[in-house]
């Protein structure tokens, strides 16, 4: 009996030894593979870009701000969770999504925070992307290597986007994890998919701001100027533009006695003007995705509402509803990227 035990122990030890050896072999093999592999210059620049971001103080500060505010909003949502869940609420089935949308008024909910801080993140990751390379004189050195010129700008964009994506997914999953621990109810498949969609849209939204600030970094030689212009645009679009739209549209406001189609047309015009804003598109898209009961983003007449049973939309319908918004966001992002791409390709590369 003792003998058998010993034998088993021996063989287990042998096996674990062998497996350890196999593992270390695989590890050295991978390392060797990495060391001896020829990597495309695009990937090399991208890797450097990512490591630059992650190592920088700027990134640490940003991630601290965003993590703190997001967790703050999640905690206030959790504290009022019992109040947020009302009886007869069509959103009730989507218990878990409340985590992202509920608030007691002291702090805005999670998705509003993302909409507010996302631009800041995008601007601060991109505002010195190109001009700092010019100012340090590194651009002529990099571009005199055998690489395509557009590899440089593409890699810059891809690197920053990777950083943003990883960050948002981490943040989103952390919130889900926190909710799981606190509420004890796991999200349904649909809720999970909705959250993933929300994260994806957030990434596109931040990518827009990233591209805008990369554009400024090509236009302006001084990083301070380009950062300031990015922030100015952000402030203008979030604060002043809606204000101006309100003032202007007041002048065209039809009287209360006007025909219904007139009022509808007026409301639609107002919305159209607001939908030029990327943050408007973002908030419409995220609201629809995170609150399944939202079934229209424009004005609805009483006839249209009459007889409807308040209930959540399936995910496919919600996505269909925000498809124009998402397309608009992607288009704005691509437009910014295109302009910066063309400007960069035409720029003369001179040493300092």
């Amino acid at each position, binding site marked *: 009996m003792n003998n058998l035990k010993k034998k088993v122990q021996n063989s287990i030890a042998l096996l674990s030894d062998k497996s350890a050896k196999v593992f270390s072999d695989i590890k050295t093999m991978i390392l060797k593979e990495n*060391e001896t592999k020829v990597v495309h210059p695009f990937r090399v620049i991208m890797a450097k870009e990512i490591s630059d971001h992650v190592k920088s103080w700027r990134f640490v500060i940003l991630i601290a701000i965003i993590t703190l505010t997001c967790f703050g909003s999640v905690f206030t949502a959790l504290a009022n969770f019992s109040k947020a869940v009302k009886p007869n609420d069509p959103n009730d089935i989507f218990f878990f999504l409340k985590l992202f949308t509920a608030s007691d008024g002291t702090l805005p909910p999670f998705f509003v925070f993302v909409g507010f801080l996302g631009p800041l993140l995008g601007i601060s990751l991109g505002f010195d992307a190109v001009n700092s*390379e010019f100012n340090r004189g590194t651009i002529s050195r990099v571009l005199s290597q*055998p690489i395509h010129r557009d590899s440089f700008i593409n890699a810059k964009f891809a690197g920053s986007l990777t950083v943003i994506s990883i960050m948002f997914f981490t943040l989103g999953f952390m919130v889900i994890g926190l909710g799981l621990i606190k509420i004890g109810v796991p999200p349904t498949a649909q809720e999970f998919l909705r959250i993933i969609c929300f994260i994806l849209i957030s990434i596109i939204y931040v990518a827009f701001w990233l591209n805008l600030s990369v554009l400024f970094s090509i236009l302006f030689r001084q990083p301070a100027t380009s950062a300031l212009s990015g922030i100015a645009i952000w402030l203008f679009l979030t604060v002043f533009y809606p204000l101006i739209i309100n003032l202007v549209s007041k002048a065209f406001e039809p009287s209360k006695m006007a025909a219904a189609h007139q009022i509808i047309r007026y409301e639609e015009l107002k919305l159209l003007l607001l939908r030029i804003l990327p943050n408007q598109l973002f908030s419409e898209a995220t609201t629809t995705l995170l609150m399944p009961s939202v079934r229209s983003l424009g004005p609805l007449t009483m006839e249209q509402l009459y007889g409807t049973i308040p209930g959540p939309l399936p995910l496919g319908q919600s996505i269909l509803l925000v498809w124009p918004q998402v397309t608009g966001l992607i288009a704005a992002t691509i437009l910014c990227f295109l302009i910066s791409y063309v400007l960069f390709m035409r720029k*003369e590369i001179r040493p300092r």
Partner: protein
Amino acid sequence: MNNKIIELVDLTKQYGSFTAVDHLNLTVHKGEIFGLLGPNGAGKSTTILMMLGLTEPTSGSVKVCGINSTTNPIEVKSKVGYLPEDIGFYDDLTGLENLIYTARLNHMPLIQARQKAELLLQRVGLTNNSNKKTGKYSRGMRQRLGLADVLIKNPEIIILDEPTLGIDPSGVREFLELIVKLSKEEGITVLFSSHHLHQVQQVCDRVGIFVGGKLLAEGNIQELSQKLFARNPFITEIKVSNKQYTASKLKGLLQKIDGFIDIADNKDSFQIECSRDITAEVAKVVVDAGAGLTYLNKKEYGLDDIYYRYFEGGEKS
């Protein structure tokens, strides 16, 4: 030696109405050190940028290693190393990391990149500083690291644009010696752009003088001086202690020598122009006459003279 490695034909670059480079024709042969000499703003840097395909020429063609730089810049850039005037490094990376980055942009795997970078750092004498951040490097060290950075891609040609700017004299000498050594040992063609005459004179096999976007002259230093000073190619300078001997008196004595042209009084010395080298005869005549020869100098034209002569001409035109 007669392999044309850089060939510029009618190269022109205009910025608006300003012509930076004006119908430039230039040929550099394999293995030589060619000096591009010209004042600031002569269009040297623009020409170099066009060779690398970083700027497009308005007209004309650039061929480097037989490849057109404007249409195939990538191939050219894999064969040409370029060291700009003030090379920029990523300050938060170490010297070694900066080199490895460049090597990897040249399709080198990591392990090979590291070996090569260490080898080159040793070669330029920066081994002790290889793990220091380049932000803390001195000007001379940066420039040497720049040379290592250029060499890491095993170039056929290296282009140095004002590489010695801001380095102290001993640093300059070391740097130039390093370049000559590299060129001779590895057969690398070097294009050396500078406005420093003495440095160019020290290292270059051939020189091109470049003013206002035009190449005014091209050749080795002797050829250039012959071309320039065709009228009076040889000048011998003498000083005498006996004050009785004036220019006219000396002229009477020296006229017998074949090849003598003229003598001019130049304060305390005399300049003798002649059509051939008559220094020895002059010395004999003056000593025999008992004039008390204290100083005798066969004047050779340095780049200084060539330079000034050209710039005078350049400004007039």
